[in-house]
């Protein structure tokens, strides 16, 4: 009956999303993915699993299903980039559009942004980990 079950379940989902996100990031880092094939499509999907709900929650919406807890991740990103938020938000949206386009290549700045997003998700995982392992 405790909160543990709920946080453990969210932790599992977010950890899986993070691992897959990082694997996709490494896939593109290796210079692959310019061509649209099954492998690159899978990698893009793994990035979008995290980025889609973030972009959705940048506006006002009730997203019915999200693989990650979009509120917390967005909050973390927003806090870390509060000074440049309008520009930063715009960059996330542009990256999202790029990943949804037919052909693209990722720049160094794109990788930095992807790393920032992954680090926000990592913070959320660390927070959930603390919630499920702490003694009260």
């Amino acid at each position, binding site marked *: 009956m405790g909160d543990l079950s709920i946080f453990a*379940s969210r932790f599992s989902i977010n950890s899986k999303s993070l691992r897959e996100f990082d694997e996709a990031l490494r896939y593109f880092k290796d210079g692959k993915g310019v061509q649209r094939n099954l492998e690159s499509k899978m990698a893009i999907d793994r990035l979008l699993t995290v980025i889609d709900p973030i972009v959705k929650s940048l506006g006002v919406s009730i997203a019915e299903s999200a693989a990650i807890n979009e509120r917390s991740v967005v909050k973390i990103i927003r806090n870390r980039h509060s000074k440049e938020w309008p520009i930063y938000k715009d960059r996330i949206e542009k990256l999202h559009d790029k990943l949804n386009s037919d052909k693209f290549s990722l720049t160094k700045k794109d990788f930095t942004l992807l790393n920032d997003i992954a680090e926000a998700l990592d913070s959320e995982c660390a927070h959930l980990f603390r919630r499920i*392992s702490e003694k009260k």
Partner: protein
Amino acid sequence: MKDYLRGIIYEQINRGLSLKDIVNHPLKYTELESLADRCSRIIDSNIQYLRYLQKELEKRDEDDTRDILRSVKGCIREVDLVEYFGISALYVETDDVGYLNKLVRKIHKEINLPLIPPSVTCISTKHYSFHAFTNVIFVPVGETRFLLHLADVFHEIGHEILANMENELSLRCVNQKYDLVLRRVTDYYRDFLIRLERETGPKRTRRIMIQNIHYQWKTYWLKEFFCDLFAIYTLGPAYAWAHLHLTIKKYENIYEFSPILPMTHPSDDSRMRLMIIGLEKIGFKAEAKKILSKWNSMPFVAENEPVIEYHDAYPIELLDTLAQLLLNGIKESKFVSSKKMIENDSDGIKKLLNQCWEIFWKNPEEYIEWEAKSVRQLKSNLEK
């Protein structure tokens, strides 16, 4: 940073190997073998991943290790969770642990659970809880001597179903109905917002509150409601009695509500109302009436009143839809879930856990002796 990361990876691989070494094989209780296997597999997969990261690290420049560090942290968290919530359960193989695991095995058969039964350990520092990562139910150490709160095991099994239903064909019906409820909840609050927009006057605060209520339903409350209903449908009135008993012992406010702060659990009042609906739906009408009458006579009902907005969070039609759809899903997934099936279970745990409440209400003082005798008998039966 690269050197330090190399060191952390080596250290963590060694920690994983050591944890596997802590578990004594053969295990004293065969019921724990699935847990030992699960822990071992999680540790092995993390060790394998760390070895892959070791190789990946060597290809990188000194300032290009952000993703490697994140992945190493992820492995550390997983191995730590196995240590805290899996290996610790295997390390303490007392007779009480043996009894609880045999008990859950029996419940598993009685309710026709199409999953590996969860393991149980009695090292909880809180009330009952389930850890999806290791598939372990944690109960307080004293629970092996009593019966009244054992009903909560059924709720925790509900959490195991939630954690597995997407990937189990035999739970497909439950999963479909759960998704349907989720859509109904969203439809309900979307319509609510549409109606609100048509009203005159300021509405921003109320709109945010409704969005928060919807968020809590889909993120937290539906899961808890599902587990409550699962316990009601597979065990019967004993679970509602246990909820009343726990509430009287621990309540702060049965109508707890915040328009802004998220609550991981629905209010105790809404949970009881849902349990009553659920009991009525499977034919326990007289018992539902009795439980509700007792609940309404409790000081926590008389002493408190909900704020007006509270009613927006737990509308009766939504609770009713939820109870009906999940009952359909649970029945279609072939769980034991009818009054007849629960009552006809002559020497089962379900019968015992319902019977204990009848005896408790008849004479609480004599109950203590009856309970001690029944627990002894139960332990002896499970040994056979």
